[in-house]
Each structure stands twice: as structure tokens, then as C-alpha cells.
């Protein structure tokens, strides 16, 4: 027995996938052409699985800002902000994100994953409790673990279950952090935030919302679900990422609590890693300006989302319940999902294949993420590629008959 033996089942699973021709979890983008197009296997492909919600990865302002910073500030910071000092641009980015949220305190992290690790582990430690939604992103689970608090899971989007668990905590609810997401990344559903806020107030708990997939997508100014719901003042902290609608990399936390500022001195994922590189910081700042100046991008995103949602519904697909930029078609089993995913790729459409254990309720999903940069023609192509999939299903049933099996709900 060696350390490496535990990889055997993974190797077997991978070999099984490889038998089918491509490995959906290790695919190469040979050339990226635009926010919505790339070359895979020598073929021009429409991207509808990249979380590039506002389609800003090639925005000229963001590219120019990045190029200038690269030339003026160099390729990297070569260390942490605590040891090497903050570049002025780090502080300017923090100011920009704080202003965007109208919040006094903001801290930038090197990735969104680290933002969750950094904020959650600093806020809740031994003796504290964290209540997390059962469908939480891995970075939330990992952040909770890093802090050493007691972790309790509540049923996905179930406020009754949440409240029950707060009640069970008794007085400990005052030292409890509730963690939810604005839009859940797999099925695109939203947290029932107004009710969650009520419950958290009733029990004196603290609430943090991860707006990774809702920043730039929800709310009048694109600040996310808390803005859309009108409860920003009642949310204690927001975390988010620059890697989706802002098209760069990095993460952040904002808060109205002055103590938030002190996380810098205690948060290991902030202290013990190199600070974001200058070009990334500059591009991110430029893109924040772009989304502030162009609310019509968000409208376009929603128009495109409705278009795709309606098209796939008409073709008979069973989708996540809420219309939005994350549109996930539920497929009855893994083999079928893989075959359909491959056929889509061969027809020039890239979506995300999502299978358990990464998915809620053991679902198999063909997950689309819509972009404001998709043209109407591209959306129509995506719809017709999905509609054409009927011949992939071995029994040659039409997608209209593709029903998730009974255990799914």
C-alpha cells in the first residue's frame, strides 16, 4: 500500500471517461477568440459555459489598463501585502469596490476562493458556529474548515430548516455566522434573502452573502442579490469574485463593520500569499468602471438568458426553476449527459458537464452560462444544437421525453 494507491479509483473513472473520446474535465482551449468563441479540437466553438456573464474579458479599456500597469508596475508583486507592502493600485481597487457597494470597508484577495477562505476563517473560529446552505460552493466549505468553527449545514434554500437550527443553538445563535450565495452556481437559483435576513435578525446571528455569480447580474447597479432584494444594510458582509462578470481574477470582501478592516491582520489566506499582480488589479478596476457606466449590458444579459431559457424549454428540456444566466438542463444519467455533452461539442457548442458529487441532489447537468456578449444568432445556434440532440439518446427518444428520474426530486 502506498500513498498513491488511493488514486486508483480516480484513474479508473478517468479511463472510463477517456473511452468516450474526450475528457470533459481536462479539455484544451486551443485558442480563445472572443468572450463567446474559442477553438476546440481545431473547431470554432460557441462558449456557453464560462461564467463570462457580461462578456468583458476583451474590453478595450480593461486590456489597455492591464497593459499599462504591466509596463509601469511589472509582472508581479513577488510577495504578500503584509511583508512587501501594498501597491497604491491595491488600495485604489479596494476603494473602487467599496465605493461600488457604498460600503466603508473592502479587502481584496488574490482569488474568490481565497476571499471565502480569508473572510470565513477570520470571522468564525473555535467556539463559534457556522450555518451553511447544503449546496454551498467548495470554497465556503473549505473556509469554514480553516477557521475551526462548528459547521452545521441547513437544507438548501430552506428558511424553516435554517430557523429550526438557529433555535436549536439557543444563545449560541449570537455567535453564529450564516452563509448563503446570491445565485447558486449549479442550478442558478437564488437564496430567499428577505426571509433569511428576517430570521437572522430574530436570532441575532451574522449573515454573509457570496455574490460570486450575482455580481454584475442582479440589482439596479449590479451589486447582486442583496441589492436586488433591498437588504444590503442587513447583510453583515459580502464576498465576491472578480473572475466571473468582471472577467479577471481576484476576490473581495466588503462590510459595514469597522472590525472587518482587522481581518487583514488575522487572515492567513490574505497574509500568506502573493498579492494580486498589477495588471490584473488595473484590468479589474477598469472593468468595474465599465459595468458602472453600462447598465445596458445587464439588460442584454437578461434578454439573452430569457431567449435561451425559452428555447430550451420549448425543446422539452427540464431546467432549473428560475430564469437567469445560469441555465442547467437536467439529464437523467451520467452516460447520457456525457454523450449529449460530446455531441454539443462536436456541433460547436461548449457547455459545462456537471455530474455528482459536484452537483446538488446527485443531478447530471448540461450547464449553460449566458453572456451579454452572445448574439441572437449564437443563442439560436445553441438552442438548435440542443434540439438536435434527440438522436444521441440511445433509444432515440426526443428531448421532450428526457425526464429526470424519479429520485431527483
Amino acid at each position, binding site marked *: 500500500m502506498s500513498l498513491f494507491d488511493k488514486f486508483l479509483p480516480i484513474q479508473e473513472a478517468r479511463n472510463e471517461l477517456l473511452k468516450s473520446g474526450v475528457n470533459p474535465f481536462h479539455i484544451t482551449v486551443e485558442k480563445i477568440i472572443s468572450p463567446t468563441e474559442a477553438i476546440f479540437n481545431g473547431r470554432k466553438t460557441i462558449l456557453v459555459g464560462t461564467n463570462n456573464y457580461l462578456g468583458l474579458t476583451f474590453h478595450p479599456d480593461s486590456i489597455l489598463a492591464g497593459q499599462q500597469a504591466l509596463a509601469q508596475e511589472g509582472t508581479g508583486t513577488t510577495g504578500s501585502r503584509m511583508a512587501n507592502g501594498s501597491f497604491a493600485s491595491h488600495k485604489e481597487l479596494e476603494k473602487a469596490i467599496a465605493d461600488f457597494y457604498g460600503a466603508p470597508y473592502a479587502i481584496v484577495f488574490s482569488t474568490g476562493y481565497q476571499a471565502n477562505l480569508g473572510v470565513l476563517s477570520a470571522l468564525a473560529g473555535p467556539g463559534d458556529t457556522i450555518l451553511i446552505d447544503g449546496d454551498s460552493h467548495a470554497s465556503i466549505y473549505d473556509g469554514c474548515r480553516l477557521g475551526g468553527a462548528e459547521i452545521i*449545514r441547513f437544507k438548501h434554500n430552506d428558511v424553516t430548516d435554517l430557523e*429550526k437550527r438557529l433555535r436549536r443553538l439557543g444563545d449560541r445563535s449570537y455567535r453564529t455566522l450564516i452563509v448563503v450565495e446570491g445565485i447558486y452556481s449549479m442550478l442558478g437559483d437564488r437564496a430567499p434573502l428577505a426571509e433569511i435576513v428576517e430570521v437572522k435578525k430574530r436570532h441575532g446571528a451574522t449573515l454573509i452573502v457570496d455574490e460570486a455569480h450575482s455580481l454584475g447580474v442582479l440589482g439596479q447597479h449590479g451589486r447582486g442579490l442583496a441589492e436586488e432584494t433591498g437588504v444590503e444594510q442587513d447583510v453583515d458582509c459580502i464576498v465576491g469574485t472578480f473572475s466571473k462578470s468582471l472577467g479577471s481574477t481576484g476576490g473581495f470582501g466588503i462590510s459595514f463593520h469597522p472590525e472587518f478592516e482587522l481581518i487583514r491582520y488575522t487572515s492567513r489566506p490574505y497574509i500568506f500569499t502573493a498579492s494580486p499582480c498589477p495588471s490584473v488589479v488595473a484590468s479589474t478596476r477598469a472593468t468595474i468602471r465599465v459595468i458602472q457606466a453600462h447598465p445596458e449590458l445587464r439588460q442584454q444579459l437578461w434578454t439573452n438568458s430569457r431567449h435561451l431559457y425559452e428555447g430550451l424549454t420549448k425543446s422539452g428540456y427540464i431546467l432549473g426553476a428560475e430564469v437567469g444566466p445560469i441555465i442547467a438542463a437536467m439529464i437523467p444519467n451520467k452516460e447520457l449527459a456525457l454523450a449529449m455533452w460530446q455531441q454539443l461539442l462536436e456541433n460547436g457548442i461548449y457547455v459545462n458537464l456537471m455530474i455528482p*458529487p459536484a452537483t446538488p441532489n446527485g443531478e447530471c447537468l448540461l450547464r449553460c452560462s449566458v453572456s451579454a456578449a452572445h448574439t441572437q444568432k449564437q443563442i439560436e445556434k445553441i438552442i438548435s444544437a440542443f434540439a438536435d440532440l434527440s438522436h444521441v439518446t440511445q433509444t432515440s427518444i426526443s428531448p421532450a421525453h428526457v425526464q429526470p428520474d424519479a429520485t431527483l426530486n
Partner: protein
Amino acid sequence: MMSYSEILPQLFDTLKPFTKQGFRLKEQTELVAELGLDSLQVMQVLLKIEDHFDISIPLNNLPNIRTVKDLGEEIEKLLKG
């Protein structure tokens, strides 16, 4: 306050629907290995148990729970508060 010996029969009853026909639950029964529960079913079992005993089992404690006995002892501990 419920003792372990009072918890055990209730725990058997709660787990029963998740076992195959004719399976005899014992204190030493391994929850995942012997009952063949996948991660989804584990979550369903936990929810049922948590509601039945009106407790929340922290995720931190799950790695230490392998058998029915472990689970019973955990419930006893949580009920003591």
C-alpha cells in the same frame, strides 16, 4: 435527558427505512460501508435523525461517526448540550 439505551431503539427505527429488506441493524453496523448509502442518502438520513431528536450534528463530527453506536453516542452527547 435521554440516555444511550433509550436513543438506540429510536435510532434503529429511524434507520430502518434506509436498509435493504431483511437487514438486521446492530450497534456495530457500519453506516456507509454496510448500508451502502451514497452521499445523498447520508444527508437524508442525517436530516431525519436531526429532526427526530431535534439536534444539529456538526459536519466536523461526521468523520468520527462510522457505526450506529458512534451515531448514538454523538446524539447522546448533543442532547446533553
